[in-house]
């Protein structure tokens, strides 16, 4: 079967909306409902966060959701169990995002097999560096039709960006600023130069911009410079409430897509 992320980027070139949430938060068994709600409300791509005890590249919101998720009893085994039948209802591409150690303990090969079995289309593993990925893991990811998404930041040098572009197989995750997630500075204030520089590089891969995208305005602005954007912390905050997911998810997404 064709990888769903490839299909998405072939059919949609702009305003792609990707949403991240931490699996197991706010409640242990919310995972499937959140995914279904996100799809129904028009999200194009979902990043399912695998919680880790030490999320060094994340800000307070995702740190907290990870901590609560783990306290709730989330594990990679359980997450795969929850997602077992996800493809019976959900068609959009799904990505697993998280730190390497839980995947490493699960067994990278076994992890990739599980992803293929369930219908996961890609991974984002920030602390798996490009060199190590290519040296040890690339063949097994390819074998299971899994894209490993790589990141670039404002500090990434041009030659490194070229290297990452060459090694990327579907899209590049553009970190909007030098920051951990949810840093919440306004995108347009200081990134235009960086966005324009990347835009003019004619990379072979499409790009999504993430980190610091929190509302309609920042989403719309990011979409001017890339094929779409990724919302994480702001969404995690929005569903951290007493309001039912069937109300909080549509509320957040509608607000995002109409107030740009």
């Amino acid at each position: 079967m064709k990888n769903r992320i490839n299909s998405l980027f072939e059919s949609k070139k702009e305003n792609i909306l990707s949403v991240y949430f931490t699996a197991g938060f706010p409640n242990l068994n919310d995972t499937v409902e959140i995914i279904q709600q996100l799809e129904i409300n028009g999200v194009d791509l979902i990043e399912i966060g695998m919680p880790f005890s030490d999320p060094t590249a994340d800000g307070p919101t995702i740190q907290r959701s990870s901590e609560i998720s783990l306290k709730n009893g989330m594990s990679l085994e359980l997450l795969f169990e929850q997602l077992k039948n996800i493809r019976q209802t959900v068609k959009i591409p799904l990505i697993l995002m998280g730190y390497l150690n839980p995947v490493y303990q699960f067994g990278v090969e076994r992890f990739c097999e599980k992803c293929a079995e369930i219908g996961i289309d890609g991974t984002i593993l920030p602390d798996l560096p490009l060199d190590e990925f290519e040296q040890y893991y690339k063949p097994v990811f390819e074998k299971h039709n899994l894209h490993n998404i790589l990141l670039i930041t404002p500090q990434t040098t041009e030659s490194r960006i070229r290297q990452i572009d060459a090694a990327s197989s579907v899209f590049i995750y553009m970190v909007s600023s030098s920051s951990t997630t949810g840093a919440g500075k306004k995108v347009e204030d200081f990134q235009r130069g960086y966005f324009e520089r990347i835009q003019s590089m004619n990379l072979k891969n499409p790009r999504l911009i993430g980190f610091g995208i929190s509302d309609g305005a920042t989403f719309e602005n990011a979409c001017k410079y890339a094929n779409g954007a990724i919302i994480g912390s702001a969404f995690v905050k929005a569903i951290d409430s007493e309001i039912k997911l069937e109300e909080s998810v549509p509320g957040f997404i509608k607000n995002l897509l109409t107030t740009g």
Partner: protein
Amino acid sequence: MKYIVNEKGYYGEFGGAWIPEMMYTNIDELKHRYLKIIESEEFKNEFDHLLKDYVGRPSPLYFASRLSEHYGSKIYLKREDLNHTGSHKLNNTVGQILLAQKLGKTRVIAETGAGQHGVATATVCALKNIKCVVYMGALDVARQSPNVKKMKMLGAEVVPVHSGNKTLKDATNEAMRDWINNPEDTHYIIGSVVGPHPYPDMVARFQSVISEEIKWQLKEQTGSEFPARVLACVGGGSNAAGAFYHFLDDEQVELIGVEAAGKGVDTSETAATLTVGSPGILHAAKTMLMQNTDGQITEPYSISAGLDYPGIGPLHAHLFKSGRAKYLAATDEEVLYAALFLTQKEGIIPALESAHALAALDKIKMNPGDVNVINLSGSGNKDMETYLEYFGY
């Protein structure tokens, strides 16, 4: 040298730089420049000068006669506790502050457990007039308050970290986040032989002055530069790395690291990573870790804040795996009594961390003719409250 880091940053299967892309530029710069900088004549002169006149090196190698008599074997103490700021930590921070200057950095961050590395960092930042921010677990802030006050007096900002177990691991997470958010002007002075390559090698080199001195001091005092064994406590493992470094290839010298068993290695309250851990990836290095089957890091426990870390430097993971060094563990109680014993036999109050190495003397076989060197990595000044409370003075 056989046990030294390879060009990719690995010690055997351990080490590497498992960093998120956000840290790539800084780590790449360090990786490409650190050796050139620290091996330059200018750097060496400056470093040696500060070690001598500011840190107070060489630190004495002291023959502990009453301790030796008790154990029936020759015991020498490498007095790192007599360094300025009271521990071996300053060796590394002096080196790294000079490096930070060469890299053109104007702001320094650090993590700290017991506060010894925090104080050592705040000290060199005061010396070089560089802005300093120290991350410290909120629990450690509470249990090491004299060091917190010292750092503040030295002009550093101390940020209490409330995530996780509120100890060293969490402080390290927060320091890494700071670096990700401030990639241009900031140098991160990691306090131990942990973290991504080149840190483990860089910190080991700065601390290697310890074993360099032990060699010539032993030669002077005993006629041979080779002891039977060297003992040092291990959390992340910087003082042990420094004490082992120049003996790594001298396979006749037994190397013994002593981890913090906490309330016992068979309890959940321990920090003995090599005894209870397994390979994994934390703080950008592949090393031995305390973790559960899902790969979540387990909260460590030790009475000594400086050893309260769920990982260990990749060099030690490799020395353990290859059998070049042996690692033991000492419980809180054994450590407290070992500290009291040294205090009353030799008139030296050791740090709780260093007392782990002393506690190991009861666990190993020593022959009468053996020369045993213990790295007394720090002074007990910061632990007086714990000692006084436990022994009821």
